[in-house]
């Protein structure tokens, strides 16, 4: 595995960790805003290896976590139509709606299929011309260009039975929202590496420039992550605030221009509802006029019933790093992976899910 193993070097990790222990003089709170970073931190047991005054918190970086409940309910309502095939990433399958989940609906015989790409869903639409193939469009900027591409191709190839239930989100503005909350207190950001691969470095520069918070764009192997922490501690100590890119092998300053062009061809920024955070300006996408036929809502008249946040669920504060899962009354006993209440419990990258799985207390 080239470009993976090279970034796994126990000796290097040890050295950086030593330096971090040595250099960390004050309490430092670092937020990672990418679920895959969260997972890697947990899988490698990095939290254990850091000095106690470094506090790692997980932001709203799991696309499944931040999808509101009505979205699931809408997907379920769509799946109940005879002529609809729902296609989705496996991640969405277990997410609980108001009274069901796609998994339960599958068990009851609805035509719901797991795909690993929206392009596979498009292929399925071609093969099932009598069915409306609806793809559950969730994700951040990493996934957005691919969903855009599938829509673009559908239009180009004149495929009319393909559409998206749209809930794509964008990263920078929600990070802004999180940091602006007076309760929130973050000393450094671990920026999402794969989002950055698409949008580049610039969209994160407000962190250092406007908010005086250092940030590092990093990859996902343990050396990448530990190095990021190393640099964040270093910048915090030196009170030198910049957005440092140590994932240059993938992330260009300007990002992937072809991918952003595709994204912008099909989508335009819009408000978006985040589970636990509410409706936030310019943190999502909607289809441009030319592509609006590929929005399932333009084709199928489905009533969307806004969903209240489950009572006692602290998802919102957990996503902002204000609370920890263990502070939630429901955690573990009532809310667990077999019976997730909030979305943070659904995915292994969801903060509550990770806390549960790895028995963090």
């Amino acid at each position, binding site marked *: 595995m080239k470009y993976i193993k090279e970034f796994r070097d126990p000796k290097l990790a040890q050295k950086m960790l030593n330096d971090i222990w040595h250099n960390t003089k004050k309490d430092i709170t670092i937020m990672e805003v990418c679920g895959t970073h969260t997972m890697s931190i947990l899988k*490698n047991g990095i939290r254990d290896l850091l000095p106690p005054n470094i506090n790692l918190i997980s932001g709203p970086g799991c696309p499944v976590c931040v999808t509101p409940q009505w979205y699931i309910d809408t997907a379920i309502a769509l799946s109940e139509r005879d002529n609809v095939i729902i296609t989705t990433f*496996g*991640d969405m399958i277990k997410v609980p709606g108001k009274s069901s989940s796609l998994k339960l609906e599958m068990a009851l015989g609805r035509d719901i299929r797991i795909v*690993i790409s929206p392009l596979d869903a498009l292929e399925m639409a071609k093969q099932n011309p009598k069915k409306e193939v609806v793809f559950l469009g969730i*994700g951040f900027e990493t996934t957005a260009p691919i969903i855009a591409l599938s829509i673009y191709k559908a239009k180009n190839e004149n495929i009319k039975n393909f559409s998206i239930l749209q809930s794509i989100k964008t990263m920078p503005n929600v990070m802004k929202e999180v940091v602006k909350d007076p309760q929130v207190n973050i000393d450094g950001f671990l920026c999402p590496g794969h989002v950055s691969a698409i949008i580049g470095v610039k969209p994160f520069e407000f962190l250092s420039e406007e908010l005086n918070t250092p940030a590092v764009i990093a990859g996902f192997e343990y050396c990448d992550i530990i190095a990021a922490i190393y640099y964040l501690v270093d910048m915090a100590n030196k009170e030198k605030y910049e957005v440092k890119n140590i994932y240059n092998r993938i992330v260009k300053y300007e990002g992937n221009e072809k991918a952003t062009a595709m994204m912008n061809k099909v989508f335009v920024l819009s408000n978006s509802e985040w589970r636990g955070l509410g409706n936030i300006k310019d943190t999502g996408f909607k289809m441009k006029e030319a592509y609006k036929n590929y929005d399932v809502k333009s084709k199928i008249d489905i009533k969307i019933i806004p969903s209240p946040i489950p009572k006692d669920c602290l998802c919102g504060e957990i996503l902002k790093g204000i609370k920890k899962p263990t502070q939630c009354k429901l955690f573990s006993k009532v809310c667990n*992976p077999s019976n997730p209440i909030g979305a943070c419990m659904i995915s292994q990258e969801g903060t509550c899910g990770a806390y549960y799985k790895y*028995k963090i207390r």
Partner: protein
Amino acid sequence: MEIITLSHGSGGKTTHKLIENLFYKNFKNDILLQKNDSSILQKMNGKVAVTTDSFVIKPIFFLGGDIGKLSICGTINDLAVSGAKPMYITVGFIIEEGLEIGILEKIVMSMAKMAKQANVKVIAGDTKVVEKGSVDKIFINTTGIGLIEDRQLYLCANNIQEGDKVIISGSLGDHGMCIMSQREELGLDANIKSDCNLLNTLIKDILNTSKNIRIMRDPTRGGLATTLNEIIAHSNRSIVLNEKDIFIKEEVMSMCQMLGFDPLYVANEGKVVVIVSKDDANKVLDTMRGDPLGKNATIIGEIIDDNKNRVYLKTDIGGTRILNMHDGELLPRIC
């Protein structure tokens, strides 16, 4: 192309013809040929081990095996890890009408081959054919009966002591990722062979090497992590594994990474995990490595006494992760 029809399951002539020409022909032995409602075994001198499993794998043929091979190996392995000598097996087929008889024949021949290799007699069988759509091609139930010759032997989680070593016979995740690689809709192409195999000889050798084997398990559904959690749940101790000692083949690891799986939770069908006293661990390891099915055996961890019933994984960089029992089936993920 001859196919299975409901007649083959109706208990009449067509059923008898199938039984004679396919099952008796391939499985034949004195006991099966009693042809009675029950098969009569001579007295068994020792304790008796019994296990049952149904096999519903898709696809029914895969690299390294098929549903027939799996159905024999799986049950024989469950007997063997319990310290029993596998002796007898019963077979229940549930077949969808329309299945090609040639396919059934391949499956049966594969079962017969494995049974012969393990020196196990197929002593009773049953064939049901159900309407098209009432089952997916073929399901097989096998029930195994083994003899525990050593009257002292009782493998059980209660035997586990602090300092005991955990040995795994080879690489992890091969079976599960082989099956995943054959799911066409994913479009993944990898040359991953299932480890589906008979462990009875390896296990016999292990038991002959040490009197201090605490417990053995074949980490099938749920993988190593789930199996170790099951073991430790019945004790008062914990297990610490060392990530660096766990062997996962590159392509298996790659497949897992691409789909968001943890290989420690992926099924194996030809691996055994052994918990053995500290003192005997190396001796057992040597024995295992002497068998082709154990040539990659390693000591991957040990038992600690922290009253927590946990499975810990020491990561490459010295961090610690808790391996919980998994919950729910593995679904390919993109994030």
